[in-house]
């Protein structure tokens, strides 16, 4: 499987965010997006996820399950967690598992609910309404979604926000496992993550990109 972005240009509200952006990412590769605020990291991730339309260029997926559109094969983690405060941790997660289902094969399977909770140290909070959770716990619950519904492509926008060092390590391991199982991951961050990605793409101001 190969994710190919070719000569991409995106503008928002008449402002050009970037142009001439190209990269190729194959199965088992991770890409780290770096650059200052406003350089277009979020914009690029949201364009890949299909929320935004590219003004020029294209993004395509080669060698993938043709039945599913690119957006369907993505997990997108933004700054919101998509968690219902009145539902318990388990209810929140089992809804996402039932709704999202699993897409993509190979080594990327969906974990059972309890294993996913275990991995993100939420097991003891299983039956607590999510409204009681701290910001970091909510973030972890949001990330648990990635484990219960398999997707080949992970798009992570500042995934470490409100995570402590231990949880960041867990996240790094999650991403590493996903990549080793043949998945793709693109993470945007301006902090050193501890995610030792093979590749880095730096977006600069005014839409210059240096791979």
């Amino acid at each position, binding site marked *: 499987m190969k994710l190919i972005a070719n000569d991409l240009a995106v503008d928002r509200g008449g402002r050009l965010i970037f142009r001439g952006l190209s990269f190729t990412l194959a199965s088992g590769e991770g890409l780290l997006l770096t650059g200052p605020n406003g350089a277009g990291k979020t914009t690029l991730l949201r364009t890949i996820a299909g929320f935004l339309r590219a003004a020029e260029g294209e993004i395509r997926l080669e060698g993938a399950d043709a039945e599913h559109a690119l957006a369907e094969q993505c997990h997108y983690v933004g700054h*919101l967690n998509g968690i219902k405060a009145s539902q318990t941790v388990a209810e929140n997660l089992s809804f996402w598992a039932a709704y999202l289902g699993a897409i993509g094969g190979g080594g990327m399977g969906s974990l059972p609910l309890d294993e996913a909770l275990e991995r993100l140290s939420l097991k003891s909070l299983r039956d607590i309404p999510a409204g009681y959770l701290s910001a970091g716990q909510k973030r972890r619950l949001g990330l648990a979604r990635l484990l219960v519904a398999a997707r080949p492509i992970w798009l992570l926008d500042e995934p470490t926000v409100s995570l402590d060092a231990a949880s960041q390590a867990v996240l790094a391991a999650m991403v590493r496992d996903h990549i080793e199982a043949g998945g793709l991951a693109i993470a945007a961050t301006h902090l050193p993550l501890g995610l030792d990605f093979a590749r880095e793409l730096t977006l600069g101001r005014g839409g210059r990109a240096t791979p």
Partner: protein
Amino acid sequence: MSPFLALVRRDLALAFREGGAVGTTLGFYLMVVTMLPLGLGPDLNLLSRIAPGVLWVALLLAALLSLDRIFLNDYEEGALEVMALGPMPLELVAAAKSLAHWISTGIPLALITPALGLLLNLDIDAYGVLVLTMLAGTPAISFIGAIGGALTLGLRRGGLLLSLLVLPLYVPTLIFGISSVNAVLMGPGGFAASFLILCALSLASLVLAPIAAAAAIRMQLQ
């Protein structure tokens, strides 16, 4: 479980749990119906005559207040974004959420109507047909309302704007709802025609409204 059913079930669970959303809507319905005799005077003949219309209008207003529940919370919490990447098109997401809104709002409002009919000295013949028309007409209210809900996401004071946008669109539902009740109460015949048109309105909105709502959500997520 199919994603559609999973979503309907979740929205229903939330509607019946989160902050008593359903209870608030029913309470509002009761309040409006109570205020009307206080404004119009206790003349039972007058109340009896206008009861079907009053109940229908009050139901519209109560349903209107609950429309922002369809998408707003999920939009603000980021869940709508995740759903957009899910296995079903946004049109079906909109349809599932509108359906859940109908089950959690339209049906309870219609079912509680006989109790409110007592307050207004509603004609005994009208109870059955009134509930029936409300059950048949409220899907249009939920589905058309979802368009308004989707258009006003992320707006300050979106609720007010939602009413302004959506109420004119409810005119046909209201008219055919009332005229089917009146056909039974007053005249010989005419019920079938009005009632079938009412059902047609609901069915058409079932199919068409999610398309518009999904288009609006896509724009909002950009």
